[in-house]
């Protein structure tokens, strides 16, 4: 925790005092921190969420008093190891393509008998709060694919369709600012103010960043999932709040994972 606090204050100073070199310096500090995390992954605060997620996975909860151990993430019930590397994918029981978080909600509904509206009422933690149950569960499952490479399936027609829709959404301009995802993420080396922007249309760059989520965000002091990441981009694009686990979020996730195909999963990673 001391490590986390000192890093956070170091970052805060950098951002406030030396904006010119801040980008490079902040990145250097983050890189140093990432290296330390590689040496000792348990020093990543997100591992607390992963830990809590594992307990939640095994705990009997909800009206059905059931754990999530019977949840099939694509490789069979209770097969958590490596499941995240093959998501999003088509699930026959739900007859739709689901990403990790969408599938977790589905399992909580079907296995534990929890109401959909209750599960998605507060999916994202606010700054400096502990991760929500969904964030903890997602971090746990993703952490069980660390070191693996993304291998999204395109065998089913609905998986192909999700990829096509995701690609179209990536380039779709809308809203009062005419923004699309591509407005910010379609060129290399660009930034907003001092924040560098990954060129997600380019596989080499997508492979570096997509596998980092869910990630611990130092500036927020909490874990952020891919659903939250996408919702936040749409917020910035001046569009309404996108529904948690909606087809658009899954399709965009499918596009991003396919862009990052072969990239290593480093989740939970650490971000600004």
């Amino acid at each position: 925790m001391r490590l986390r606090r000192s890093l956070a204050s170091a970052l805060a100073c950098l951002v406030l005092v030396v904006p010119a070199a801040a980008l490079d310096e902040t990145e250097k500090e983050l890189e140093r921190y990432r290296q330390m995390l590689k040496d000792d992954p348990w020093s990543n605060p997100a591992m607390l969420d992963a830990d809590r997620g594992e307990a939640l996975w095994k705990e009997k909860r909800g009206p059905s008093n059931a754990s999530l151990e019977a949840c099939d993430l694509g490789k069979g019930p209770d097969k958590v190891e490596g499941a995240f590397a093959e998501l999003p994918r088509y699930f026959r029981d739900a007859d739709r393509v689901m990403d990790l978080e969408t599938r977790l909600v589905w399992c909580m509904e079907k296995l534990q008998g929890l109401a959909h509206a209750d599960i998605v009422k507060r999916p994202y933690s606010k700054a400096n709060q502990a991760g929500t149950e969904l964030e903890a569960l997602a971090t746990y499952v993703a952490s069980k694919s660390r070191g693996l490479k993304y291998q999204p399936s395109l065998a089913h027609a609905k998986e192909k369709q999700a990829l096509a829709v995701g690609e179209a959404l990536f380039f779709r301009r809308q809203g009062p600012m005419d923004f699309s995802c591509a407005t910010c993420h379609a060129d290399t080396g660009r930034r907003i103010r001092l924040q560098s922007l990954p060129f997600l249309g380019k596989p080499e760059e997508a492979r570096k960043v997509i596998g980092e989520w869910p990630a611990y965000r130092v500036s927020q002091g909490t874990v952020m999932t891919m659903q939250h990441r996408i919702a936040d981009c749409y917020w910035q694009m001046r569009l309404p709040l996108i529904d948690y686990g909606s087809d658009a979020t899954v399709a965009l996730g499918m596009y991003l994972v396919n862009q990052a195909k072969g990239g290593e999963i480093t989740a939970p990673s650490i971000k600004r």
Partner: protein
Amino acid sequence: MHRLLMVAVVVIGVPVVAYLLLGRGHSAMSVDDVIKSSWATATPEWQARLSQDETQRVCSQYRNAPPPGLADAILAREKAAIKYPADGKLMGDWKRGEQLAQSGYGGRFTDYPPRTANGGNCYACHQMDGKELSFGTLGPSLREYGKIRKYGADDVKAVYERIYNPHATIPCANMPRMGTSGFLTIDQIKDLVAFVMSPESPVNK
């Protein structure tokens, strides 16, 4: 004659049918369905932001590289959407313009009810005043933009039009249509023009 007709039907018909079944027509419909279902809980007023106008539609379809005919149509349509100040003066107060260039406030669902006026957020993408080091690089640097152009009246007008509606100059430009969308008022745009084009502005120092 019959054989020729049959060949013609096959040559034209097969790609057309394939296109309708598998091509853009099919996937375009799916995208609209997905958009509709994915913001189902938003209010109708907010859902309205999800539907595209013709320029957004064409720029999305051609990924900002529209074919010549459609590019000309965008130029003409967006040019016609520019409104000019009643008194003909295109430059306001550069100091107010500087504040607008700094402010990224407005338009997000957390910005309602409005707490202050919308900002232009120019620094998110452009370098302007040399002393401001926190600038983005999605757009070109505007350092000494007016000075380099010798503060010409035509350039003042061009800057006003660029901010009001950049598609009137560059079809499928990345920059928002600040005037046409109503995000900024005519007076705010005049202040931004002054920030870029006035000799006193730090942009030109």
